[in-house]
């Protein structure tokens, strides 16, 4: 059993006990524990069930690479699935539940899959769920959905907050082990601004556990000393619990800082995503130990040798009483020594190597009285929910059992793989190191930065420098290189000297024993999280999935939350073996950020709730809000859709507002319309190029409606232009168009006609603009008092500056409703006061505000087009019968040449018409008209579509506009529009102007 020892545990504060629960069971740990070490201390070796076969799984690792120890944590607003127990720091009151089992972790029905495993090989889902097709919806899909996914999805709203932080430095060092610390120190010594980050809560990486000395003092002391030195330097920022999640172009790094996961009672954000720009990056991200593929290597109690050492040294936890060590290298012997020194039993070290003479580690083991069996291996592990023993065989053979050894834990080591993820994210290439049997960074093919320079340097174990002495020197070198690369002067300094025992070479072992038969191979796990065995990868190769990327997807090797941190190299080697190829030829799958999963909250940062998106508000926004406005998003603006009164529904309100604007007096908040000032000697010429009609001939004091097209000829915007003086125009744009059209203008001025003398300014938000609409509009303004707004003084399509009710205003006599209408601009800071004044004077005149839906109906009654309804990016003005607004005199304007293209002049282009249902009902918006015959796909031929459709309260029927094949030539014809749910609408083609065809109402 696993248990807490009486002594040891360098990271623990044994003065402070912490209570936590696992699957409802009350347990205790200490401050400094991880959830993993605390579970082990409570003999909770079983932490989860595997994904596919639901096999019992225990802890394998002690860090970010852990594939099995994933739990649901927290509850309600702090609930989160797939939390890794090895990197979760214990805190008082932590609650966790294991995942992927039913009904309980101890007894799981799904475990039947393990007995069916020979029927569930690689690609099972792909093969099984192909045919017959009708079974998909009701049998296969529910089954797959049931089996898919790891952990439970949170249901409650996330109770925490998150944020981003931008940071800039010369040198960034990722990883706070000895190499990273040394790199940071040498880089900082040059004066460079250095950021050093460490994903865990502790400095030193593996150094303090693995031991050795630096300049004669224990590694742990060296770490303490260098950290305090760095801490005192003003040009160094040191951060723990901050993981380098990804390295991107031009020195961009995402850092994931966990602020409160270990101390949820603290105030402030939970995670902070650092958006870092570094001149040069040192990846000192260490290495990860590889498992050995032997039968039963997934039985709880089988653990990486280094992890077992971590639990023992860091947390004072023994994984078992009797531990068999199985290895292909000297490093795993450290675990044997530590176990022995802790008074635990190590019955045997099974070393797959056959060495001519004992390595120093072997000698030391023997001196401690540990039996060492060279050339030996594990044939299989015995036990189900816990290791009970191992069957020993010869590594060279096929697994004939020579001896059975009872034990309750197995420590394995298949060698070490550098963590090359961050090096690789942005294109750094790898080379295969034959001696150490791993991929490491190829220094000649580093990621390239903005100047074409290498901007990442790997250091220490991450660079293949696994031993202490090498790692220190490598870190020292990397620090100097990084500082020099960012323009700092590097002075010669001596690197501290690390000392650790000599090691004999390791021997690659990709299958144990090397001749293992199919029965053993199909119990030899490569990927614990995804239940991929040696036999699965071999099957994939046999079935033709030879590319490593294909094999990955076929078998799921290296997928999910751990992304194959433990399994990849063993998997590649297995694939290479099956293909009779070499590992470097097979290559690796792509390393993509993030290094380990990061919270969605951290990615969103502050952007949630109120600040999810930048809602834009007019000066009268709050008034609308308190007067029943239902909001319609228009771009980021919020405009009132309708002002709903008590006892009304939305439709009632729209009908009331629409009628009232025609009968009495309506007010529309038109502040969102774009207003662009265009000024300069060439302003007229410029607008002639931008609008399809002539603007240069407009007289000061007058207004003209204009259309704008892109160079493709398609309509992009419309609005009324007012000429302010000889040099100055004010162009109105659509609500969503102000910024877009402003940029459109600037683009042409800056990049094509840069010698034209024109300046543009966007003054949209300087003004609150109110449309005062209806037969009582003039009366209301007269009541306000001030400037002369009579027909004689201010005719239709004219504008004037003046004063109304004491407000400085600019009044435009323009109408998008077809009624008598004044659009009045006042400074935004007085918008609300002006609106209030209009409501007061309008009180006896039947004033009502109206929203965007009434606006739409009013304009549709008049047959006015709306950009975005009648246009969709493929419509030209000619389609809409707007020939009158397209100048024939002008030699050129944007879109003119395009509108001459053959497709644009095709008489078969659909054209705008009005549509009236025979029944008076409202046509569904977007419905298509069908004609005779079918197209190549057997669908009915379509001959038109509805672009706008409303119930008109003023006309008492449904009215619509649409684009119809030969439409204007087919007046009076009845078309069929199939709707949803079997309904078909019949509508007659009519003139799109339904109301006041001669325009007499506005021009009064």
């Amino acid at each position, binding site marked *: 059993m696993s248990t807490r020892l009486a002594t040891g545990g360098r990271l623990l504060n044994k003065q402070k006990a912490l209570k936590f629960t696992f699957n409802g069971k009350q347990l205790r740990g200490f401050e400094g524990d991880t959830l993993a070490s605390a579970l082990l201390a409570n003999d909770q070796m079983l932490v989860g069930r595997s994904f596919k076969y639901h096999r019992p799984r225990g802890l394998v690792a002690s860090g970010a690479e852990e594939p099995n120890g994933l739990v649901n944590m927290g509850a309600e607003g702090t609930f989160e699935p797939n939390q890794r127990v090895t990197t979760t720091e214990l805190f008082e009151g932590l609650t966790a539940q294991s995942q992927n089992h039913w009904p309980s972790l101890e007894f799981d029905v799904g475990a039947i899959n393990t007995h069916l495993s020979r029927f569930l090989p690689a690609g099972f889902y792909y093969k099984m769920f192909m045919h017959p097709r009708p079974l998909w919806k009701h049998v296969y899909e529910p089954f797959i959905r049931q089996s898919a996914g790891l952990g439970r999805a949170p249901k409650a709203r996330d109770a925490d907050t998150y944020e981003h932080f931008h940071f800039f430095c010369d040198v960034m060092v990722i990883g706070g082990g000895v190499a990273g610390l040394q790199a940071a120190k040498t880089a900082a010594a040059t004066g460079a601004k250095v950021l050093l980050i460490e994903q865990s809560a502790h400095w030193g990486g593996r150094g303090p556990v693995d031991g050795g000395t630096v300049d004669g003092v224990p590694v742990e002391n060296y770490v303490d000393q260098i950290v305090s030195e760095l801490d005192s330097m003003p040009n160094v920022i040191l951060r723990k619990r901050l993981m380098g999640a990804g390295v*991107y*172009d*031009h*020195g*961009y790094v995402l850092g994931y800082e966990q602020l409160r996961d270990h101390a949820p009672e603290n105030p402030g954000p939970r995670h902070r995503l650092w958006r870092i*720009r570094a001149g040069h990056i040192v990846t000192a991200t260490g290495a990860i130990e590889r498992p050995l593929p032997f039968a039963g290597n997934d039985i709880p109690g089988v653990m990486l040798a280094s992890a077992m050492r971590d639990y023992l040294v860091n947390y004072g936890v023994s994984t078992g009483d009797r531990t068999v060590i199985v290895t292909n290298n000297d490093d795993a012997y450290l675990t044997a020594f530590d176990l022995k020194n802790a008074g635990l039993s190590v019955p045997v070290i099974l070393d797959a190597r056959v060495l001519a003479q004992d390595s120093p580690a072997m000698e030391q083991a023997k001196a401690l009285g540990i039996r060492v069996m060279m050339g030996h291996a594990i044939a299989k592990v015995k036990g189900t929910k816990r290791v009970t023993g191992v069957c020993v065989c010869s590594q060279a053979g096929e697994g004939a059992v020579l001896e059975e050894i009872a034990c309750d834990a197995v420590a394995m080591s298949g060698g070490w793989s550098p963590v090359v993820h961050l090096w690789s994210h942005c294109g750094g290439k790898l080379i295969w190191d034959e001696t150490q049997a791993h991929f490491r960074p190829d220094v000649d093919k580093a990621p*390239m*930065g*903005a*100047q*074409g320079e290498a901007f990442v340097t790997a250091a220490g174990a991450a660079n293949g420098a696994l031993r202490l002495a090498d790692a220190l020197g490598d870190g020292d070198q990397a620090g100097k290189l990084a500082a020099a690369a960012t323009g700092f002067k590097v002075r010669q300094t001596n690197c501290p000297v690390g000392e650790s025992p000599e090691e004999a070479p390791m021997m690659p072992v990709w299958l144990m024993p090397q001749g293992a038969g199919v029965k053993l191979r199909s119990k030899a796990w490569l990927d614990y999280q995804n239940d991929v065995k040696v036999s699965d990868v071999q099957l994939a190769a046999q079935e033709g999935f030879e590319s490593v990327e294909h094999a990955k997807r076929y078998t799921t090797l290296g997928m999910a939350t751990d992304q194959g941190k433990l399994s990849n190299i063993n998997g590649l080697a297995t694939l290479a073996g099956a293909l009779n190829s070499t590992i470097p030829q097979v290559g690796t799958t792509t390393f993509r950020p993030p290094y380990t999963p990061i919270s969605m909250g951290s990615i969103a940062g502050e952007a949630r709730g109120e600040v999810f998106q930048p809602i834009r508000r007019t000066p009268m926004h709050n008034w609308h809000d308190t007067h029943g406005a239902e909001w319609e998003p228009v771009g980021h603006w919020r405009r009132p859709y309708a002002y709903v009164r008590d006892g009304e529904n939305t439709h009632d309100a729209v009908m009331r507002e629409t009628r009232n604007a025609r009968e009495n007096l309506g007010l529309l908040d038109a502040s969102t319309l774009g207003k662009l000032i265009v000024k300069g000697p060439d302003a007229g010429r410029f607008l002639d190029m931008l609008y399809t009609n002539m603007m240069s001939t407009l007289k000061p004091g007058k207004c003209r409606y204009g259309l704008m097209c892109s*160079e*493709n000829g398609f309509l992009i915007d419309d609005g009324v232009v007012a000429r302010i003086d000889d040099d100055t125009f004010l162009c109105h744009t659509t609500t969503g168009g102000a910024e877009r059209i402003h*940029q459109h203008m*600037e*683009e042409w001025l*800056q*990049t*094509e006609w*840069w010698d034209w003398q024109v300046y543009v300014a966007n003054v949209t938000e300087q003004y609150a603009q109110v449309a005062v609409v209806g037969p009582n509009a003039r009366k209301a303004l007269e009541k306000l008092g001030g400037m002369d707004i009579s027909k004689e003084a201010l005719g239709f399509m004219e504008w004037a500056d003046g004063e109304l009710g004491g407000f400085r205003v600019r009044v435009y006599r323009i109408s998008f409703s077809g009624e008598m209408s004044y659009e009045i601009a006042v400074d935004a800071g007085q918008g609300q006061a002006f609106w209030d004044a209009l409501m007061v004077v309008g009180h006896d005149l039947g004033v009502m505000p109206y929203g965007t839906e009434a606006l739409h109906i009013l304009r549709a009654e008049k047959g006015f087009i709306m950009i975005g309804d009648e246009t969709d990016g493929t419509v030209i003005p000619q389609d809409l019968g707007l020939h009158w607004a397209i100048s024939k005199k002008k*030699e*050129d304007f944007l879109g*003119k*040449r*395009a509108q*001459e*293209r053959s497709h644009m002049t095709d008489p078969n282009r659909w054209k705008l018409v009005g549509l009236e249902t025979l029944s008076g009902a409202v046509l569904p918006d977007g419905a298509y008209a069908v004609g005779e015959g079918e197209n190549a796909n057997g669908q009915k031929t379509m001959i038109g579509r509805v672009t706008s459709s409303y119930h008109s309260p003023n006309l008492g029927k449904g009215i619509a506009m649409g684009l119809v094949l030969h439409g204007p030539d087919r007046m009076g014809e009845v078309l069929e529009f199939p709707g949803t749910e079997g309904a078909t609408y019949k509508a007659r083609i009519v003139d799109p102007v339904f109301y006041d065809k001669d325009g007499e109402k506005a021009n009064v």
Partner: protein
Amino acid sequence: MLILSCPVCGVTAEETEFQGGGEAHLKRFGPGASEDDFEGYLFMRENPRGVHFERWRHAYGCGKWFHAARCTTTLEVFGTYSAQTTEPPKDLRDKISEKRPNWAWREFE
């Protein structure tokens, strides 16, 4: 995410401050242009592997357009220059030639 230097306001900033504007140095064809010329102007674009010339706008900064010479494979930025020109400046072309001998892009090399 790229870093670009705006030659107009002198600010060096990350890509999110900028907005890409497609291929540089297009020649506008208007009324009277042949179908081929107009098609080329509207639709035909370079898609090189290697040296490329682009338009960018410092959208969240000074608002000005400029040109950038960039390598599409390594993302190296050779330089940025004024939008008010119809061809890449000589010194920039020379600089690119030093780093990418024999490069060619449209009529430039």
